[in-house]
């Protein structure tokens, strides 16, 4: 029953796995970045639901709101930072994607890493992540 009560957690873990699946399995690099973003938001969802309080109110003290009923503001502050970080990483990765496409003419990981000119082991470099 506790598991059902924590359905937000389950959802975020599910989204995390969807994202990770995309990052690992899909071969298109923009798709991988979408997966990355899904992963990120899932973790944000997880952290925010950690700070939730049943019947809580938003942590904004206008009009004499009762502090003891407010939800936990700390994860929200953290995730704000997290969102900014996520955008930054996405922007950089997309810039790299644009440059990669200019140079290789493909967005497919397999094609990108097929002609590994710098040596390295061929088998392991199919965009595996973890």
């Amino acid at each position, binding site marked *: 029953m506790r*598991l059902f009560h924590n359905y937000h957690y389950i959802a975020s*873990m599910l989204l995390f796995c969807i994202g990770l*699946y995309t990052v*690992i399995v899909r071969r298109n690099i923009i798709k991988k970045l979408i997966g990355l973003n899904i992963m990120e938001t899932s973790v944000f969802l997880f952290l925010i639901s950690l700070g*939730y309080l049943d019947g809580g109110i938003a942590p904004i003290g206008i009009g004499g709101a009762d*502090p003891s009923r407010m939800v936990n*503001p700390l994860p929200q502050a953290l995730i704000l930072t997290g969102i900014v970080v996520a955008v*930054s990483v996405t922007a950089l990765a997309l810039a790299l994607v644009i440059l990669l496409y200019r140079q290789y003419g493909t967005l497919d990981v397999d094609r990108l890493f097929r002609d590994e000119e710098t040596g390295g082991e061929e088998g392991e470099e199919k965009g595996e992540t973890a």
Partner: protein
Amino acid sequence: MISLVFIAALFALLLYVVANMPPMGDPDNPTNSSEVIERYLEKGGEETHADNVVTGIIINYRGYDTMGEVTVIFCALAAVLAVLGRERRGRIYAYVDRSRVPSSVIVRTMVALLVPFIILFSVYTILHGEISPGGGFQGGAIVGGSMIVFTTIFGLLESSQRIPQRLRFPLEGSAVITFFAVGALGLAGGGNFLTFAWPEIAGNLQPSLVVWLTVLVETGIGLGGAMVLISILFSMIREEEEIAVVP
């Protein structure tokens, strides 16, 4: 296939963890019952002079994190510019619009009608960050959004003339610089770095001083964030084969 199994296993593991986690929303679980939160919620208003506790935490209690955050934004800009290069300074470049179709008059007019409101709304978000939801970066992102639509509709040529590089360039780092300056000011007041409150100097002025500094920092973040987002966008939109238009 292996990766699918791996992910399924990971999901099972995570589910197991989640099943063993404290129930969500319970006032007694560790996140909600720690003394950290109590102080934030009960004294946050007095100590940071921000009704929005989240803003109080961001700017004041955990200001160092936010300083890192604005550095991340700046770093993203530096990184994107290092990878893609900036649209060039001093000369006007025509944007090779792949579509070569002017945008719709209706959309142009509507955007022109809405942009002032979007900008004013973002100013409101920035300046009222401490009493209502929002704050520096949100405001910056909204301005960034308005500039995005402006750029896509009016083209890079026009928008990079309207928001020229000599305007963006000095403002991009404003977030970090403001934060550092305010932090150093706290040091000068006898406190630690990033102290917003210094009783020795301020005295009765203390509350309004803290509020003003918060607003200052938020404004810095907003300006910096907006400019960074716009610059990143321009740098990504710009075509490699820009055509030089001699002025």
